[in-house]
């Protein structure tokens, strides 16, 4: 029987849509970075998309407000809207439950 090795945690892929330096966008970036560093220190990748620079991305990804956090993987894809100040709520979404 092969030895039981802890299954490596799936890599967490996140994308945060923001609007330039707008206050809630800055809050969202800060909150998300802190959260991931604390709970997923080595297994996360965050892509930040500024819709002011790339408005077409909003259309492609179906984003209607900023800031919006999208958990791309592991599945299922999850959206969180807002400044991400409620850590519990964000963790639950990221936990894939």
């Amino acid at each position, binding site marked *: 029987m092969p030895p039981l090795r802890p299954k490596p945690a799936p890599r967490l892929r996140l994308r945060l849509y*923001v*609007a330039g330096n*707008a*206050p*809630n*966008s800055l*809050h969202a970036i800060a909150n998300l970075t802190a959260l991931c560093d604390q709970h997923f220190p080595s297994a996360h990748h965050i892509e930040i998309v500024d*819709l*002011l620079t790339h*408005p*077409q991305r*909003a*259309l492609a990804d179906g*984003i*209607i*407000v*900023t*800031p919006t956090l999208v958990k791309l993987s592991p599945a*299922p894809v*999850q*959206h*969180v*809207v*807002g*400044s991400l*100040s409620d850590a519990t709520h964000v963790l639950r979404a990221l936990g894939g439950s």
Partner: protein
Amino acid sequence: MIREAAPHARPLARRLAEAEETIAALLSREIDAVVDTPSQTPVLLSIAQKALRASEERYRRIVETTDEGISIVDADGIITFANRQVAEMLGYTVEELIGTSIYRCIGAAETANAERRLQQSERGISEEHEVTYLRKDGTELWVMLRTTPIHDADGRHMGTLGMMTDRTHRRAAEEALRKSEAQYRQIVEATTDGIIKTDQTLTIVFVNRQLADMLGYEPAEMIGRSLYSIIGSGGKEIADESLRSRQLGLHGMVDTTYRHKDGTEVSVNIAGSALSDGDGAFTGALGIVRNVTAQKKMQSQLMVSDRMASVGMLAAGVAHEINNPLAAVIANLDFIVESMSVAPGHPSPSAPARDASWILDDIRSPLEEARDAAQRVRFIVRDLKVFSRSPDHEQRHPVDVQPILESSLRMAWNEIRHRARVVTQFDAVPAIDANEARLGQVFLNLLVNAAQALPEGQAERHEVRVSTRVEGDRVVIEVGDTGPGIPPEVLPRIFDAFFTTKAVGVGTGLGLAISHRIVADMGGTLTVQSTQGQGTVFRVALPIASMTPVALPTDAPPATVHGRRGKILLVDDEPTIVRVAQRILATEHEVVATVSAREALARCAGGQRFDLILCDLMMPDMTGMDLHRELARIAPEQANRMIFLTGGAFTPQARTFLADPPKEYIEKPFDAANLRAIVHRHLRSMTPDPAPPSAPQ
């Protein structure tokens, strides 16, 4: 989520949860921006921008739906925004306007004003002006323009917001109003009548040029004055009464007087009305004022000319009346002269000498006849005087009607006697308030009219009836005839001026009109009643005088009195008067006589003193008035001893002289007894002269 959704429903549940989250985030203000996709290109809008866009949308709607034209012009005058209304007003499209200089829409005359407005805006000043723009087709657009500066968030001036309201229609209305006002003003200024308007306190608020000219003011001087300040004496009651009746809604004219700036009175006829507001409250008075001073003067001239005509017409009759007694005087005096020439010491072949006593008996009777005849002449002349009083001698005083009627009858006698008998019925009536000469004129007119209504040569068949009686508070005088009567169609016009049924040259056509006016002026009425075939009666009713008549100087000589002997100076330019007066007075007094006032003055200046100076009033060279004035200066007590002789032909100056202060005078002709009595009376009433003693007693 209370329970796990079925696997196929999981994505949907997730989307719902996300939507809930989105809404929650929006509500908790955790959203920065919303993605808008107005076209294929998505636009990211911040929440603030989104709100601005919404509010801009609202403003845009307002800007496009308002009736006002709204535009924004930058500092260089370039139109950066214009709504549809501005474009329509100016006749351009919005696209044509934006980017265009505002000066393209402004006439040359307005350019400077437009520049100034933009400068004011840069200084932060909002303004409101009436402005004329040029439409694309070159016509003028008249707008009310409000300009407001626009600043950015940092306070930099961005341009000027202009809001314009089209006033072209309003201006047309105002233009029409102005034209109509101008029309009224033209009427008010062009009319020859004066126009005056007051407020409810009777303060003058408007007068036209004519009214101001009428009273010698500038129009501006009169505004703010009380109406009463320009009303003449006695006019206040008339004005009050008139205003009362106007306020009751009565219309009509009133004759009164206004006071000229120089203090003289101006006769006016006023058509007035009371002004009231919507509730009927009195708000002022409006008067159309006509100056009738000239008309009044004309009327008075007409009255004089009528009187002249009356007197002229009667002159022949009067001459006849005078000739009869005058013939008796001359014939009797001739007879006496002849008798004297055959008196003793003057033998003549035709008349043997007779004794003196017989001659005296012989001439007594012709002398008395001559005197009686002369007396008759005197009465006729006195009657004439009733009618020859100066027309400006208009004072009214209580007078007895009957003597005036009798004078008038004598004057008209020559007209009447060939046509009718005169039947008089004079009741004792109280005095009336009237002017003697004017009343005589009325009676004479009526009597002559009555006579002329009758054919000549049938005196026995016709009557002129004259009667007086009292009716209530009036004295009624009736003058009737038994002529054919006045046709009914003519009767209403009988008192119209220049209306006459008489042949040309017979009447002036003024007699009855003027009589009517005279009687009305005296507060009375003149009416007519006529029955065809039976005759006509004119009826004068005049108010009884409130005062008893002043006793007119009587000619009846007072009982002969013998006073002291006096020294009398007699001055008259008519030598016959001087001689006869000297003859009458010299039997009792020492008389110094002269035909020159200068000689009289020289005597007094030389120290002579007189108890009495009898002096003619009117003399060529130096008059009695001149003498009085000179004496008053050099010998006042001698001036006080003057008694004036007058023939009655008074000038206004002479009348004033005699009346103020009152002076003694004797009317010519005087008879011997009369003259003696007056002299005695005055000598008695005067203290003996203290100065150089007069003639020895």
